[in-house]
């Protein structure tokens, strides 16, 4: 059965007419696919089929260990959204529900390069010269989560030092426990700083500053 209904597929086709550069979806799964891996795989196939600018490549988390390590993939299902260059944009877990919008936004972003960051944010990001890892914990039913994910992904796109993951909290329960996620969105900055809610750019900048 198709994951996406016809209405969404036709919306996607229309929207993807505006794509510019080719987009590579690098998807990591395994031979005997976990439940969410299989669903994510099907979803990505349908998304990729909506535009000839979107290419889906599938890797095996075990067998293609080197590729997984290269992209810092440590759990599956995992997705890297990139053009010819890795922009640090990752999805761990299925981007369903409201997170589907985050997925489509990230495809638009890497294809068109159009950012919505404030000038002051870009000025700040220019000063970031150390690796920063953002993990945004979400649930698919949380309407406040996509803005937090999209902001983190935009920062990752702009700065080569930043890597930003969407993490579906209920799929990666042990990670949620590790980072004490009891409400979403919760953004974990370099393992030790935390930001609650879909906060403005300045709040996230403050958290990142702790590591510079």
């Amino acid at each position, binding site marked *: 059965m198709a*994951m996406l209904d016809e209405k969404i597929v036709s919306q996607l086709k229309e929207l993807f007419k505006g794509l510019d550069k080719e987009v590579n979806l690098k998807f990591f799964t395994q031979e005997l696919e976990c439940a969410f891996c299989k669903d994510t795989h099907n979803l990505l196939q349908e998304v990729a089929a909506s535009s000839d600018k979107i290419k889906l490549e599938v890797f095996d988390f075990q067998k293609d260990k080197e590729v997984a390590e290269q992209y810092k993939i440590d759990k599956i299902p995992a997705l890297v959204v990139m053009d010819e260059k890795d922009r640090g944009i990752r999805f761990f877990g299925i981007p369903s529900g409201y997170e*589907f919008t985050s997925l489509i936004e990230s495809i638009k972003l890497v294809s068109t390069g159009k950012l919505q960051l404030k000038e002051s944010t870009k000025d700040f990001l220019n000063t970031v010269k150390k690796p920063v890892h953002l993990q945004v914990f979400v*649930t698919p039913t949380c309407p406040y*989560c*996509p803005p937090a994910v999209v902001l983190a992904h935009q920062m990752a796109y702009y700065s080569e030092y930043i890597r930003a993951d969407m993490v579906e909290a209920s799929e990666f329960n042990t990670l949620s426990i590790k980072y004490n996620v*009891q409400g979403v969105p919760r953004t974990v900055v370099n393992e030790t700083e935390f930001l609650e809610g879909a906060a403005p750019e300045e709040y996230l900048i403050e958290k990142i500053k702790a590591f510079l």
Partner: protein
Amino acid sequence: MFEFSLNLSQEIDKNQIFDLIIVGGGPAGLTAGLYAARYKLNVLMIEKSFISGGQLTGIDTIENYPGFAEPVLGSKLAQNMAEQAKSFGLKSINAFVDSLDLQKDIKEVKVGNDIYKAKTILITTGTSSGKLGIKHEDEYVGKGISYCATCDGPMFPDKKVLVIGGGNNAVKEALFIAKYAKEVIIIHSGEKLNAAVSNIDKLKDEQKIKVLLNSSVKAIDFSDLKNKTFEIENSSNNKVETITADGMFIFVGTTPNTSLVEGQLELEKGYIKTDCSLQTNISGVFAAGDVIVKELRQVATAVGDGALVAYKINKYLSNL
């Protein structure tokens, strides 16, 4: 099993003068937008969230909105409303409206560095969840305190959770949380629940949910996140009991989102006063939905307001 929701902003020419700008894209704003687009008005809706639908987007299911014999997901109803309005040509952007200048004939809507202009304005900014007003409440939002069951309910698998409130929202959301949690205690200050009988009846079938009446949370101590404690006072015997739980969801009352219009529009207890055409004290400025003074704040009444106000705005514009 999976739902997929797609909501993307449109690009808009900022130099035009719109017939109508709608501030807030919940059920009231979307319905007004749908009607206005069908009247062929040049209308723009501005919604701060990524996703249109307002409070609907954070509700599990709706059972009392006509036309859906089976309970409909709030997110689904929101998406349907947004798509339907768009199909008639409603333009919308996702942006936070910072301020409004309503005094002149041409009204101005400030969004970041941009100014949008319109002949009429419709305020449909709705309400936000009410706070309990206890110490440390804000500090622990996201760390055990939540106002959104669909967002954070799944974060409490096999946990013990308190739900504060006794109205329909509290009862409905408690039922949703019970899908995940192992124990849910509804704490309500009144001597009986204020929810619809059909909702209360469902509690009887849900073994995981207990109800504490005449009770309210007086204080919380989350200093040990693994052992959160709550002081519950019982007003019938004035006894205070301390219980432990993993989290607390609050559904007590609502706060109108009217800071934008404070000082410009007449308010009553924070809600916007309107006449029977849903016009405010300023000519050309209308308001509808949960944000206005009214008795029943529901989806059905919000969409009713939305339809009526668009009709009145169309009439107003044709008399200009």
